[in-house]
């Protein structure tokens, strides 16, 4: 875990350097599109800082100065599949955003949906040294959490201390300075496949960029699409992307669970293309223009021209009714939502005080999806669009940009992660010596 600890700490340091330089790029690597924003951080107004949180929920500190998006290539199920194509796509968006921002960006914070995220709930408890809880105590209690068997080839992506309990008091967000004897913590650990992260690091390094942070896209979508009381009271954000559907559950402003369904809008398109025997791009277009999940009597009469260049007149002049199209789309959407339902059930979502469900992501724009989701997931369903941030182009305000906007918020105000605290002193003991011995063994 210490290696990961160091990597994550290094990325935090890079992020800090980027903030100091004032410009950072955000990269959302999705299965259907890759988006890039360039943020410029302005100096913190000391008067505002004194109040705790600045105006516009602290967003006045940064501004989007460049934005670019391109069709994704080489990404499947939200993870990088073909490195060269993905690298090229990253170059396209970074170059476009740099050009718009008219500045050079060196640091990138990236997010992706796939790689099999898995949540773990961890708990740790220690006795407080001294009277008051200090930084060391927090670090110790975080280190006391037993790392579960996350499996080979897995890597920790997020490790949020969600809740602190001091003696008999629970629900503390920050125990530092409290007087008590026994400190306990609940930590949420999110792991992903190590290979996915390594591929991402490789792609970004090939573009001469430095990685300043990685985030799960379900998590950052929740940051952008859920309003504050939803995050506080408990809600699920379902990010219906192209190749993967992310599910994240928020409670008390912390993500307490995240998972992903390896299905998304691209599968719907694939179904249409297969069902109607048309090319993928035509299927995508028909889905975008005429798609839906609830058929009505009118839909039987609305005929859709399929077109085609096969040379076979009969094939090229086919028409389908919209009802037929919905008949293809709906089962797949229901399948996705059933998977989501299963995930939510597994996560114990029904035990949350508020069970708000927010649908966001590009595929959430299918007409009638909210009705279908309400039937399948629960009554409190709404469609969510990302928060408005300064300077965001109009074209990037749709539901499909939830994760990149959330990534901007994540970049500006990262929540405390486990590696933001120092490694407790007792664990450090002897370590430099061991490292020095290893260095000797390797080099002599």
């Amino acid at each position, binding site marked *: 875990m210490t290696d990961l600890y160091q990597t994550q700490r290094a990325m935090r340091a890079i992020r800090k350097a980027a903030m100091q330089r004032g410009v950072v790029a955000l990269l959302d690597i999705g299965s259907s599109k890759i988006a890039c924003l360039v943020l410029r951080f302005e100096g913190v107004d000391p008067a505002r800082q004194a109040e705790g949180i600045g105006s516009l929920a602290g967003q006045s500190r940064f501004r989007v100065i460049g934005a670019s998006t*391109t069709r994704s290539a080489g990404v499947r199920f939200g993870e990088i599949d073909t490195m060269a194509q993905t690298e090229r796509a990253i*170059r*396209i968006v970074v170059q476009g955003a*740099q050009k718009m921002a008219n*500045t*050079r960006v060196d640091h990138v914070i990236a997010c992706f949906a796939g790689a099999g995220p898995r949540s773990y709930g961890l708990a740790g408890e220690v006795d407080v040294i001294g009277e008051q809880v200090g930084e060391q105590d927090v670090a110790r209690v975080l280190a006391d959490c037993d790392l579960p068997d996350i499996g080979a080839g897995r890597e920790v992506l997020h490790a949020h201390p969600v809740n602190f309990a001091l003696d008999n008091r629970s629900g503390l967000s920050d125990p530092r300075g409290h007087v008590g004897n026994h400190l306990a913590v609940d930590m949420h650990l999110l792991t992903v496949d190590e290979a996915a992260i390594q591929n991402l690091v490789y792609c970004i390094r090939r573009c*001469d960029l430095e990685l300043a942070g990685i985030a799960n896209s379900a998590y950052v979508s929740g940051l952008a699409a859920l309003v504050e009381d939803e995050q506080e009271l408990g809600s699920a954000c379902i990010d219906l992307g192209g190749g993967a559907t992310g599910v994240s559950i928020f409670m008390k402003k912390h993500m307490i669970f995240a998972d992903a369904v390896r299905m998304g809008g691209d599968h719907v398109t694939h179904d249409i293309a297969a069902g109607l025997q048309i090319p993928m791009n035509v299927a995508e*277009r028909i889905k975008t223009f005429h798609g839906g999940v609830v058929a009505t009597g009118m839909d039987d009469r609305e005929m859709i*021209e399929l077109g085609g260049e096969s040379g076979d007149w009969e094939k090229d002049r086919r028409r389908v009714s919209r009802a037929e199209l919905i008949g293809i789309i709906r089962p797949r959407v229901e399948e996705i939502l059933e998977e989501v339902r299963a995930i939510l059930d597994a996560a114990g979502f029904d035990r949350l005080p508020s069970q708000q469900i927010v649908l966001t992501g590009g595929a959430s724009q299918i007409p009638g999806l909210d009705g279908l989701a309400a039937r399948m997931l629960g009554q409190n369903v709404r469609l969510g669009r990302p928060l408005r941030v300064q300077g965001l182009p109009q074209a990037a305000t749709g539901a499909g940009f939830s994760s990149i906007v959330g990534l901007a918020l994540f970049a500006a105000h990262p929540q405390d992660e486990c590696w933001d605290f120092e490694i407790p002193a007792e664990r450090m003991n002897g370590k430099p010596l061991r490292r020095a011995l290893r260095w000797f063994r390797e080099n002599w």
Partner: protein
Amino acid sequence: MRPLTPDPKQGRGRGQPPRFYARRDRAPSRLAFRLERLWLTPAVRAVTRIGAPIFVVTLGLGLWLGDSARRADLVERYDNLKISIENRPEFMVSRLEVTGASPAVEDAVRMMLPVGLPASRFAIDLNSYRDAIERLDAVRDVSLTVLSGGALEARVTEREPVILWRKPTGLDMLDADGHRVASLTRRDARPDLALIAGDGADKAVPEALDILAAAQPLLPKMRGLIRVGERRWDVDLVGGRRIELPAKDAVAAMKRVIEVDRSDDLLSRDFTRIDMRDTARPTVRLSANALEHYEELTGQKPRSASFSAQTVKPVAVSAPAASGSVASAAPVAAATPSSSVRSGSAQSSAAQTSAASSSAAPTAARPAARPSGSAQAAAAGPAAAAATPAAASPTRPQARPLSNPSKVAP
């Protein structure tokens, strides 16, 4: 059934397949991507857009100017251009017009012009030229204007000589401020101007002019004014006689003398000095002859000529003497046959005055009936008596009782 979409084959070029998607964005090559990032680096941009052009221009200029012949050529061209512009006919001054100057001054002004005409306007340093002209004593003020027709106009205001100053070295004409205007070789070249002398006389020219204006009636008898000790004036009269004026209020003293002269014919008496330096004690110094006569007439034995010649008797010359002057005059008056009589009102005194003037014949020793309604007249009475022993000879019974000048006028 209505189709929802237009026929995809319409609206596009013939033979072109329908295109539903925008084409894939073309990815930049790694090199292009790196170059673009390099170009977006602020330092590189600054160097390329500002530094490189400056470097190239500086290098080019440096190489080109490295050759001294080129440099000289460049300087020469510049000078030629400058000269050709300066010598354009628009900037040429072809003549000098001097107005308001006498011929001598005009000649001097023309002589002083630093360049020969015609010359460029830029070749004439007007400021120094004006300063040079103003350094002429005869010039009070000058203004130089370059007129549009190629003329340089010098408007000269000359100093007006109002007085002559005789110095050991010569004779100068001064203006009203005491500034030298010109020298004279002969006094009679300007007989209309009064003469002053003495060290520092030029610094007190305004006062001298005031005194001269006040002494208008005396001018025929006057030789000039002499500055004494750089502080006060003497009026030099013909015959070596002098009126010594005080340092303060010299004009008032002069007026007093004129007034007494008008009433008592003071200046035609035989005296050497009239000393007005002490306003409270004006004094007349008699000549030796007059003193002898006086002593004879008053019955005093002349003790010694030299002593009597130096005897100075106080004279109350004028009316506005304070009552204190009565006291000072009294001992003198006691030595005279006359005595002051104080009497009556102004009316009676006027009557007596007219009577006295009609019977002025007998002697100066006659006790004058004094119009002594005022202390002034009373004070003046004995003084006049004391001042007139010279006239006491039987052959020149000139003494007249003092009275108001206005009443004597006929």
